[in-house]
């Protein structure tokens, strides 16, 4: 305890430095804390400038004093290692601590303390905090758009049913496990499609579109039982023939009318909206963009030059333009390209546009997976006498897709974040509904609450998805 050199804290005077340093550090934190929570200014007697910087200076000196290497106190060493390695880090740490302390009271008071929750009109929102009443009153619009209130159980029921059906994979026994891919790729989308077609819409929304989907899915299912010798010609002819048969011979309009569930009102797609529309669009775009993207990824790696050029052109075109212009195209340009009596619903047009757009990104992701596979896999499959399709379906794609799960998840994340753009074609999902509600003369001035609400919802969805994809990545990393 002899001579203390204040410029060089060391172990010999550990306690002195520790007490002095902690005291200064504590004072600086206390000053900011009191200032921020109770608007007390301990250092008010000092000149303005000094009073403002004093916590930083005191805290810095305090941290400097307790920066003693190998002090022998475990917690102190940890503290030094994590936030107090050198002067620069000490200042940054202090600043971050101050920012956190400073920002807690205003955020807390805005969110909870001064916020109003009760009531159902604008009059209760007199405090300086958020007006959650606004969200409460408008919640149905934010969730379901203009979908009639009395019919919203249809959306809820469909989503619950689809989530339950989607979780089948977790409960499948060993015996059914091998059919899961078939289930998820073909049967589940079909069920989802029927749910939305018959149940949510309750009317002839996806008219022409539905024939094509049914024809494609039926022909793929039957295609599994066709000998591989004829497969090529089968897929050349049958889907189109099936489509024609379905459209012109089998499914007369009366059948569609019959197919409609009795007692369900038709809700046109213009009335759909809110968060449920975000889910519907994301879901359909995901199931459409995946096969299209896969086809173009294979096309880009095809050995036939013409197919390769077409695929490259397709991919680079969609990747080069912004989604908003693609939606513009689907809204104003696409109708010009169709026969006059041929009408496609604008929701369907938006879904097609987003699917094609995302398909290009999916194609690039899948191509990355295909390229990452060692050539031995291809050669081994060929040496077993497998043809192109057999090789890809049974050997290459299962491995490549496993590799690109994180990439696909990222693309899907981008897709979910892109859905608000459909305001371009006049569809209002949650962000669009917020903008609509914001201009309602009875509820002016609550833009902030609305955006914060939507941001929280989106953040939870996207963060959960990114964590899930990270988990999948970790899970499959060990497999190879």
């Amino acid at each position, binding site marked *: 305890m002899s001579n203390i050199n204040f410029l060089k804290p060391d172990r010999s005077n550990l306690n002195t430095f520790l007490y002095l340093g902690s005291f200064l550090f504590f004072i600086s934190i206390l000053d900011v804390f009191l200032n921020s929570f109770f608007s007390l200014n301990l250092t008010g007697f000092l000149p303005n400038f000094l009073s403002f910087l004093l916590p930083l200076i005191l805290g810095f000196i305090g941290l400097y004093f307790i920066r003693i290497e190998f002090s022998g106190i475990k917690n102190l060493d940890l503290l030094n290692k994590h936030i107090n390695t050198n002067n620069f880090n000490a200042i940054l740490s202090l600043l971050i601590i101050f920012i956190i302390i400073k920002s807690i009271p205003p955020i807390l008071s805005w969110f909870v303390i001064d916020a109003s929750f009760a009531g159902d009109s604008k009059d209760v929102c007199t405090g300086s905090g958020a007006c959650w009443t606004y969200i409460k009153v408008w919640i149905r619009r934010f969730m379901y758009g203009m979908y009639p209130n009395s019919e919203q159980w249809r959306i809820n029921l469909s989503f619950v049913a689809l989530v339950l059906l989607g979780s089948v994979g977790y409960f499948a026994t060993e015996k059914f496990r091998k059919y899961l891919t078939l289930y998820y790729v073909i049967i589940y989308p079909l069920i989802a499609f029927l749910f939305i077609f018959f149940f949510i819409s309750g009317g002839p929304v996806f008219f022409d579109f539905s024939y094509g989907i049914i024809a494609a899915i039926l022909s793929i299912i039957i295609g599994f039982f066709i000998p591989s010798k004829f497969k090529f010609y089968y897929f050349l002819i049958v889907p189109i023939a099936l489509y024609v048969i379905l459209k012109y011979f089998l499914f007369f309009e009366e059948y569609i009318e019959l197919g409609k569930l009795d007692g369900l009102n038709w809700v046109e797609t213009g009335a759909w909206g809110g968060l449920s529309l975000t889910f519907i669009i994301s879901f359909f775009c995901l199931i459409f963009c995946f096969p299209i993207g896969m086809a173009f990824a294979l096309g880009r790696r095809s050995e036939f030059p013409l197919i390769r050029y077409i695929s490259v052109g397709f991919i680079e075109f969609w990747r080069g333009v*912004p*989604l908003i*212009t693609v939606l513009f195209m689907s809204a*104003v340009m696409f109708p010009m390209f169709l026969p006059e009596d041929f009408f496609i619903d604008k929701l369907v047009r938006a879904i097609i546009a987003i699917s094609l757009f995302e398909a290009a990104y999916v194609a690039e992701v899948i191509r990355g997976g295909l390229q990452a596979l060692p050539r031995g896999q291809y050669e081994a499959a060929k040496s077993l006498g497998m043809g192109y399709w057999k090789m890809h379906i049974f050997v290459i794609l299962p491995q490549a897709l496993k590799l690109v799960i994180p990439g696909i998840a990222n693309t899907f994340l981008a897709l979910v974040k*892109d859905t608000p753009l459909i305001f371009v074609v006049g569809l209002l999902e949650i*962000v669009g509904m917020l903008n609509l509600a914001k201009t309602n003369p009875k509820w002016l001035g609550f*833009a902030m609450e609305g*955006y914060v609400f939507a941001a929280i919802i989106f953040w939870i969805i996207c963060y959960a998805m990114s964590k899930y994809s990270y988990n999948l990545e970790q899970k499959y990393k060990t497999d190879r």
Partner: protein
Amino acid sequence: MNFKLKDIVPQLITVIAVVLVFGFFTYNAQINMENRGIDFGYGFLSQESSFDVQFSLIEYDGSHSYFRAYLVGLLNTILVSVIGIIIATILGVIVGIARLSPNYLINKFAAFYVEFFRNIPLLLQIFFWYFAALRALPLPQDAEAMFGVFFLTIKGLYVPAFIWQNFDIFFYSIIAAIISIIIIRAHAKKVQENQGKQIPVFLISIGLIFILPLLSFLIGGVSLSFEVPVLKQLATTSFIYEGGVSLPPELIALTLSLSLYTATFIAECVRAGIQGVGKGQKEAAASIGLTPNQVLKLVIMPQALRIIIPPTTNQYLNLTKNSSLAAAIAYPDLVLVFAGTALMQTGKAIEIVSITMFTYLTLSISISILMNWYNKKIAIQEK
């Protein structure tokens, strides 16, 4: 023969399918346009546009042509993209490095920033800044000056304008400084390779870049003065700032949200790049006696850049494409001015949408060519 047929048939079918689809579309488009009495052509570009744009880098009013309106939109898009790319890069690099900091607080703070801004749709962020955050700013008459000269108000940011005399001489002096720095660098490299001597290039560069423009002020007759924005009363309750440069709130909201959003992705690229350089590289460099700064500059960064640049290019492209979201808050970019207003007025859907898409394609491709060139330059030159 059979073998060849198998090669040709799939290609032929694909091509026929593509041609059929396109032919079908063109055929329908022709019939539709005939029925509606629209004629196809790009002649409208030279017609008088007769609409006004509120923010423009070049002189423009309603009497100019549609082509000029297109240029206005394009320049505004490029302006937002360039500012956004610069801010996003700086922020992204800082956050990316902070993500690797041994300091727990900084590390978590950066992680929080990345996770927070990355998972909220960009459009929502733009709306938030524009409709909620910037609307809370004071009116022009209540605004307090920042540093005495900047005024941040609900009507935009007002900054002082530079008024140059003999600007060209100043410009040439900077060019001369840059050229001489490049020459000195090349020379220093040669000297170091041949004789092992090190020339303090950095100090010389700094000196040159300051001294030459300074000389232009002293000798060349260059002078610079500022025009500070001044509050002016239009009516009893209506105030504006006169003089200086005003940046509209749309531009501020857009650049802010674009750069905050894209910076998160760039930060992840930077982090991945620096982490991708093997630990052994760092240790090896330290063991041959390089200082930490030299290790970072000569060993880590050149290798990390190779990993960082390709994904960062993608982010630049994304930012440029995302700048089209400007249309949602009425910032007069290409989409709003050309694909919005001009399309409404002329009804030339096919022409205008195709020009817009083609422009974005060109922008994307030119950025990717530029970055590919840079990437190739810094790639490993295998001998």
